[in-house]
């Protein structure tokens, strides 16, 4: 008889855990993603489930800790510098859903760093013309000056003209070179670099040969709940104070 009682109690407990889990998952999906950081219980629930998903799907590029790799142009997800948007959970979720240059029609597909040392810097935009080697060097000096580093003043002035002139750099990176997170154009006036170590050589490689990193779209390969859990996990590693009471 005791065995029967234990069996029934265990079944009820398992059912209760399952039901609570389903309820939390449902609450998680129904909630406004941007409001979730304020809900400590749901956030902890999502982060707990998002971590293994991150390790299984995202860590292969972003690394297990999410710090990325400048050598391969994989962004650091643990800092507060966001290429796309401002780091809100809904924005992170959108990137996971549709990807970046993933060929999904709803992906962030607009911004491509042209290869200015190639005859056709951006095959999708015939208006962008190549630059000469000296032009590229001048633009690099301009960027050095924008970052407060030592630069050749004459070359930097010429570079400024190119940046806002026929180089067309301003079109994505904006006039002040601070980038545009609405299209994923990085801020070029700070010390954070997506590719390389910020040296002249690394900048030359980016300007001369272009960049177009890809983040895949997961919308058709992961459930909505998994994507939200992943988004909140990424949010949590970039906002270490988000989870109170110690996760």
């Amino acid at each position: 008889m005791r065995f029967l009682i234990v069996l029934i109690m265990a079944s009820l407990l398992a059912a209760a855990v399952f039901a609570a889990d389903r309820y939390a998952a449902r609450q998680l999906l129904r909630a406004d993603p941007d409001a979730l950081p304020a809900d400590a219980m749901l956030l902890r629930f999502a982060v707990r489930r998002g971590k293994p998903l991150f390790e299984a799907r995202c860590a292969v590029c972003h690394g297990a800790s999410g710090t990325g790799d400048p050598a391969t142009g994989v962004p650091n997800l643990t800092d507060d510098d966001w290429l796309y948007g401002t780091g809100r959970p809904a924005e992170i979720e959108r990137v996971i859903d549709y990807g970046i240059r993933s060929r999904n029609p709803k992906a962030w597909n607009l911004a491509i760093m042209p290869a200015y040392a190639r005859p056709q810097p951006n095959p999708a935009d015939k208006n962008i013309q190549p630059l000469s080697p000296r032009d590229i060097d001048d633009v690099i000096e301009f960027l050095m000056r924008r970052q407060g580093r030592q630069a050749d003043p004459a070359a930097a002035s010429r570079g400024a003209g190119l940046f806002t002139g026929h180089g067309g750099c301003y079109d994505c990176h904006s006039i002040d070179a601070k980038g545009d997170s609405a299209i994923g154009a990085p801020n070029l006036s700070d010390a954070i670099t997506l590719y390389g170590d910020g040296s002249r050589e690394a900048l030359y490689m980016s300007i001369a040969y272009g960049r177009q990193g890809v983040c895949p779209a997961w919308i058709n390969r992961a459930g909505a709940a998994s994507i939200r859990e992943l988004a909140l996990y990424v949010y949590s590693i970039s906002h270490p104070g988000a989870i109170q009471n110690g996760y």
Partner: protein
Amino acid sequence: MSIQFHTPVRFKMATDQRPEHAPWRDPSQISHARSFVLMAAGVLIGLVLAGYSLFTARSVSTLIVPAEDVALVNQQPISRADYLALLQTLYGVDLSHATREQRHKVLDDMIREELFVQRGKELDVAATDPDVRGALVNAVELEIAENAITSQPSEAALRQFFETHEDRYVSEGVMRVRDLVFPVSALPELPSEAQALKRAINDPPTVARLNGRDSGKTKGEEFYFAAKIHLGDELFAAARDLGNGAVSKPIQTPDGIHVLDMQQNKQPVPFGYAAARPQVVSDYRNQAVDRLKSSGESFLRRRANVLIADDLR
């Protein structure tokens, strides 16, 4: 011979001295009431689970809108993610800051779109509308290629791809070359020996005497592709192999005799794997996508029944 029916016997053991329980509570005794109750409970649990699965599972849900969706239109879900994205795009607000009217308007628009899409399928608009056909082709290609886009190739595979296509990953060459052009009549007077020719073209009075001039085709340092466009194929081919400080032999073209004075020539340099890796990943993926598209198309062709008119066979 008599048939004896076995009747369960409860073996009383030394420890079995506790008070008697009701038969349904004692697992060692058969109880019809208990069997019935447990069977009924099992049936009930089974029905609840089946009903839950039937009415909540994605794509078969009939009564409950799944949590990841905001509506079902003829059982076709409207995704919550799409709803939030549209809300943000149209009004620049998230769900908690959207007004009731904004929420309803967006939902209503999405339901309307879904209804028209479903009607479009019924009418088979893809048969006549080239835009719809193009969009369908793109969507199916994307679907086919999804595996290649989503999966991350291994370093070994990337390295092998790089080694196989190493010639793709080179820097663009840079040259600074002066192109001097002389009339054909000056050809006999141009020195044939390289050093003497170099001295001659760098001596302005000599150049003037021979009616020579800088063609102006090149300006300072140029990438190879730009120099090729400016100089033309023939002159560029001659310039490409000149070392720093070298001059070409006189080259006769329809517009005169050209002498190239190479001031600086940086030949293309192969990139190492680390420098080329981002491009290698992109090229590897593109190749995988093309391969998948091609095999997807082959599969569709194999299973299709295509009849071609006699005159076009």
